[in-house]
């Protein structure tokens, strides 16, 4: 049984003040995006990590707002979230840490977090604060596309925020097309049926999935996440897509080497 959605095709209205995400996606290269958990390894590392990532040529950053019960994440990111929360991280502190970030950083910044902390902050207040700081988009794994479309899309758009949706190898073509129609930045392609975490290589199943998505010829570019950990998986993931996101592997690097050798990590990817 398929569901009929009530939606209309939309285009980004204001091209003059184009969102940094859309600008980045127009570049003629494969984008490297890095996820890290805000407040990890230490509470006040957030700004330094962002600045160093940009300095070393990363194209886009996902700032993880830590949550006590991160369902879609594997052990590495969950552990980093637990530690960040123990360090005292809160939504208010994160916004405070980021208040001057646009004085030094120009690449797109996306907040990735679960829906409950945003609800408690107040969705409209959260979006307004994001716009004030210069956040370009949000990734909220547990906010489904239908709920977003019906209840929250207008608010997100009022504050110029791009909401990014996930698709997986199990997502049907119909649903991918619906997600494509509601999206106005990129689509986050989850590489396999899994929670987050590093894999060594992509197999035939992933390659078929990449080909299937390519053939759909979607209006939004795709960026692959989950299981990207090194130069090899980055290259594989970006053959048919616009870019890739690395999360757990970078968190592991921070765990092992701290925040002073970010150049080494980024250099190992490309």
């Amino acid at each position, binding site marked *: *049984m398929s569901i009929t959605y009530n939606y209309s095709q939309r285009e980004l209205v204001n091209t003059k003040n184009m969102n940094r995400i859309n600008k980045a996606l127009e570049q003629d290269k494969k984008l490297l995006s890095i996820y890290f958990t805000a407040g990890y390894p230490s509470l006040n590392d957030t700004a330094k990590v962002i600045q160093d990532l940009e300095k070393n040529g990363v194209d886009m950053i996902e700032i993880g707002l830590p*949550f006590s*019960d991160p369902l879609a994440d594997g052990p590495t990111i969950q552990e980093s979230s637990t530690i960040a929360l123990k360090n005292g991280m809160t*939504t208010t502190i994160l916004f405070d840490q980021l208040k001057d970030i646009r004085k030094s950083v120009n690449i797109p910044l996306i907040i990735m977090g679960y829906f409950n902390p945003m*609800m408690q902050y107040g969705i409209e207040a959260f979006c307004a604060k994001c716009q004030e700081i210069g956040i370009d988009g949000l990734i909220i794994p547990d906010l489904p596309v239908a*709920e977003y479309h019906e209840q929250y899309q207008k608010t997100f758009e009022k504050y110029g925020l791009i909401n990014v949706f996930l698709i*997986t190898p199990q*997502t049907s073509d119909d649903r991918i097309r619906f997600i494509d129609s509601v999206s106005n930045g990129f689509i986050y392609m989850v590489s396999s*049926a899994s929670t987050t975490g590093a894999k060594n290589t992509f197999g035939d199943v992933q390659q078929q999935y990449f080909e299937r998505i390519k053939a759909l010829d979607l209006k939004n570019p795709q960026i692959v996440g989950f299981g990207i950990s090194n130069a090899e998986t980055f290259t594989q993931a970006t053959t048919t897509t616009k870019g890739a996101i690395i999360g757990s592997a970078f968190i592991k690097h921070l765990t092992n080497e701290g925040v002073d050798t970010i150049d080494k990590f980024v250099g190992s990817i490309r």
Partner: protein
Amino acid sequence: MNYQISEKGYYGDFGGAYIPEMLYPNVEELRTTYLEIMNEPSFKEEFNQLLKDYVGRPSPLYFAKRLSEKHNTKVYLKREDLNHTGAHKVNNTIGQILVAKRLGKNRIIAETGAGQHGVATATVCALMGIQCIVYMGEIDIERQAPNVARMKMLGAEVRPAKSGSKTLKDATNEAIRDWINNPIDTHYIIGSAIGPHPYPDMVTRFQSIISEEIKWQLAEKEGRENPDYVVACIGGGSNAAGTYYHFLEEESVGIIAVEAAGKGVHSGESAATSQLGKEGIIHGCKTLLMQTPDGQITEPYSISAGLDYPGVGPLHSHLYKTGRGEFYSVTDDDAMAAGLELSQLEGIIPAIESSHALAIFNDKKFKPDDIVVISLSGRGDKDLDTYINYFKL
């Protein structure tokens, strides 16, 4: 007022399916098929047969004469404690294993806190010859050794949840992660009236056998189908949902929910979600849950492991918000006293969860001719250690 689930999966403001996209195909498959499956004549026949011959239903509706005299009202106990495996949990696991079979699933996962739902799941998996993996918090594994042994004896694999607080909510997180990683062959048997739609409704329907039986049993005994009150304890709220279900639209029937106050509602060690919770998202549904002002889910406390959950099912949030349900909270001490009282007045040792419902008499005075039906959701065997330590037996 409507207390049924809406087409989109909400009870009033509560419910929905706030799940990562990775879970969407599984949940969607269930959403689009569960009612159809449950309404198939062959399903109903198999379900009812198993409830009768395997679970031992109908469970008695027992007039508790001495308890009634003590509290000067007419008390009936719905004896879910006499079910196979010792609690109401098996009503739901029988139903869900039959759904899983019809969906072609050959691997079952479940979460458990005290181990009752884990045992009920391991039981039906053994019955059907299906692989069973139960996630249980590492701390709960230590404190519930007999139930861990039961699950193992039934052939289930018990996997420790080592993340977060290492208790029920973390076991639930791990089970959800397992489902994300095994999207094709696996069915997740949720044990309470929580989770993404359609779980709260599906679990409620399977448990609604409780109120269905109360109706005809009470008609036999009292010449009327509707009591004045139905009383149940609430953690996630599955026995309560089943006890209330056929009375929700009967406005003459008072609905009473008893939560665990732990060491006191405002002691910092409590699980009284309706009193302490705020609207938010937990395990895939919008409902009342205990959380920090920043939206981090907090760890509840109750002496009863089955009530030790930071959220409450979306139906119950709706009953609370609309005022359809009267909510009370009972401390550890009052629950233990009520458990001892039932043991010595009626010769029935209740589960500590059910003891919370039995402690309603401290807070609510009933009239002498009121008919009060209390769900005795489980038996106390599993809690013997706790009773021994508490009463220095």
